[in-house]
């Protein structure tokens, strides 16, 4: 079985009011030195019956078709044998 972790993040320059609000909250809790905070999404997928190479092309297609919106988001992923 393969374990896939897909991370989807907002492209640089795309407004992230959520990240900004979380950063402000951390600062109001006394955490200093925060330069930036961006929110993203983590998706954990377990896959069966694919070699790591096949899985890679499947995951790539999943990201392009559904998991990320290329207008506003970037993605990357890691595939591990479980």
């Amino acid at each position, binding site marked *: 079985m393969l374990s896939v972790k897909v991370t989807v993040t907002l492209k640089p320059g795309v407004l992230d009011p*959520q990240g900004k609000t979380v950063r402000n909250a951390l600062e109001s809790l006394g955490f200093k030195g925060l330069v930036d905070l961006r929110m993203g999404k983590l998706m954990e997928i377990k896959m069966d019956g694919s070699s790591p190479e096949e899985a890679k092309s499947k995951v790539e297609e999943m990201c392009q078709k559904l998991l990320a*919106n290329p207008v*506003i988001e970037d993605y990357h992923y890691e595939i591990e044998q479980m």
Partner: protein
Amino acid sequence: MRFGVVLFPGSNCEMDCQYVLREVLREEADLLWHKEERILGYDAIVLPGGFSYGDYLRTGAIARFSPIMKAVERFAASGGLVLGICNGFQILCEAGLLPGALMRNRSLHFICKYAHIRVENQKSAFSNACDRGQILVIPINHNEGCYYADQETLRRLNEDGQILFRYCGTDGEVSEASNPNGSLENIAGIMNEAGNVMGMMPHPERACERILGSEDGRLIFSSMIRRWKGEG
């Protein structure tokens, strides 16, 4: 004129659209279940507002793969009029039928209130019943209405007159103060390059009778009807 109003799981404005089209504008309007794979005998398609698929992943991201969306794409490619309202606008962007994306409101608040929008192009299939610069009062009701597109796309939208409506003040002034959700350039509604697919965040179907505070929403539907009749 015969309208088809698409019902996705989680849509919640389809009855209002159908009511307005039938009872106020006196046209035909059927609800089309999202599992339909063909659209036959319709002159225009409306993708209504709501929370299709619970807004999971991204608004409109899953609805765009509903079986009916392939038919909507073919309908649009053949020149049919397609109007997306609120969640419908989000679905059209996810489907690539309109450029750009709709993101979380800048304030992070869900906003439900009347908005003033200014008509930027009064020649389109969706605005020909309006005057240029006319200020319409139409409610917005959304959490993800912040329009985003890259600079090149924005430039083209401006140059080609694809921006139909911008949020404005009561006097028609377009400014940061009159931008409810952080949309780039106060964009409230755009159409595609061919001019037959339009998306807007405000809900025209909620502003078609005086008792509801505004009748300006009728202008969107009557523009479509005029275009279909070859009058506008």
